[in-house]
């Protein structure tokens, strides 16, 4: 299990214990976390599951693919070095805790 902490722009937090096979996006959708929409269902066709990952260089996250890199050019909120598509971040046994911040602006 991976503990995923979703931080909202207003400071509130939601914590979810995600099972292997879940992604940060799918766990958020199952729990109705505000700001993560996942319109394309994890097909990397939209950027509505954009999050900022705390400590993105920790080494436990999968490397960013060219496709993800390309879609991150289409985010609503500004892209930073912490930006990832949450559909590409798997929960699993190797990651105990992940903290992500949900961008503030999302239609």
């Amino acid at each position, binding site marked *: 299990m991976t503990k995923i902490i979703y931080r909202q722009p207003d400071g509130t937090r939601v914590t979810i214990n995600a099972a292997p096979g879940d992604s940060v996006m799918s766990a958020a959708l199952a729990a109705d976390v505000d700001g993560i929409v996942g319109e394309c*269902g994890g097909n990397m066709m*939209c*950027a509505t599951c954009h999050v900022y990952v705390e400590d993105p260089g920790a080494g436990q996250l999968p490397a960013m693919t060219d496709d993800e890199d390309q879609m991150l050019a289409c985010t609503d909120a500004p892209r930073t070095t912490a930006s990832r598509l949450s559909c590409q971040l798997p929960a699993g046994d190797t990651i105990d805790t992940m903290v992500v911040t949900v961008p503030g602006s999302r239609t």
Partner: protein
Amino acid sequence: MSALAYLSLGDPTFRTDRFPAYRRLRDHTPVARVGPDGTRAVLTRYADIERIFKDPLMRVQPKAGEFPAGIGTGPGPGATFHKLSLPDLDAPTHTRLRKLASPAFAPRALAHMRSWVERIIIDNVEALATVDGEVDFVEHFGMRVPAEIACRLLHAPAADAGTVLRRMPALNRLLTHAPLTPDELAEADQAAQFYFDYIGEIVDSQRGKLGPEDPVGALMLAEEAGGRVSRDELIVTLVGFFIASYHTTMTAMTSAVHALLSHPDQMRLLAADPDLAPAAWEEVLRWQSPVHFITRYAGYEFELHGETVAEGTQLLLGIASANRDERRFADPDTFDIRRTGNRHLAFTAGGHYCMGAPLSRLEGDVLLRVLPQRLPAMTLTDPNPPWTDDLVFRAMTALTVAPNGV
């Protein structure tokens, strides 16, 4: 039971209000067979349809890598058009083209579009404001505004809108999954050739002049960056923007006005708080979805509500029904612009999620902010407008209103 027992276009009750029939399907026959051999199935529940949309193994092509026989087997312009059209493609071609087209409606492009979208909508609202008496909203606004926006989007002269739109029904027949007669195919070929020529000229004349913040410019830059998208693919994608943005927006704008004028309490709420405009637009799309059915093909055999759905089965996904599913939405038949958690399926979901959704939302935001302020006395003068008989594209063909009241 066959879905045709419920979905009868000849039934006057169904023609005026389809939603009771959809509810019966959801409640009693959530997997309803169509046709004598039962090779097509109608699904009407939100959860089932969302699952199909988001499953990457479900297809838009009848068989993997194959196109409908009706589009012709030769290299005609119609067949070429179909084979390059995003809504008719599966991975991997769809994936490649879709990613290249995505920047067209990304936030940066939308921010640049807002000023001219606002100008077109406000100018046309002002034109309505000059009308003394009644006017057909469909003719004088619903058809006009999306055409002007589509033309501006593609850098086509607004005066050409009629010429461009006239050939669209012929092409649309080719892009749907309905069988085509030889005459219809010939007409579709002519229409496709017209679009290749017309849009091709625009592409050639605009080349080098547009930046990445422009939807057409974004696609052109993708084309120029190492030939990742061909000229034909570029043209077909741009025509796809035109087609997709025109009819659905016309329908949604008309439905928005109809819904608000027939629910004065909701109109008052919107007038008092213009920031409700985005939520009101989402509610219009949920409550009167512009597209009622979308086609997919089962990518593998699966069980659903006790029915075995074979691989290759044509699935008619009833998104208008899903958006009224009481299993997903509380009080689904109530038009409520303050509804929260409104994750409707009007733009579908999954890999084919409507690429133009951000543009639709921009248009809806502008329209629903401006209309209640500028035309606060607008009144519906025909409470029973005529509707099309089309099973897929449900729309009012006229909507008589008095812009300044009666």
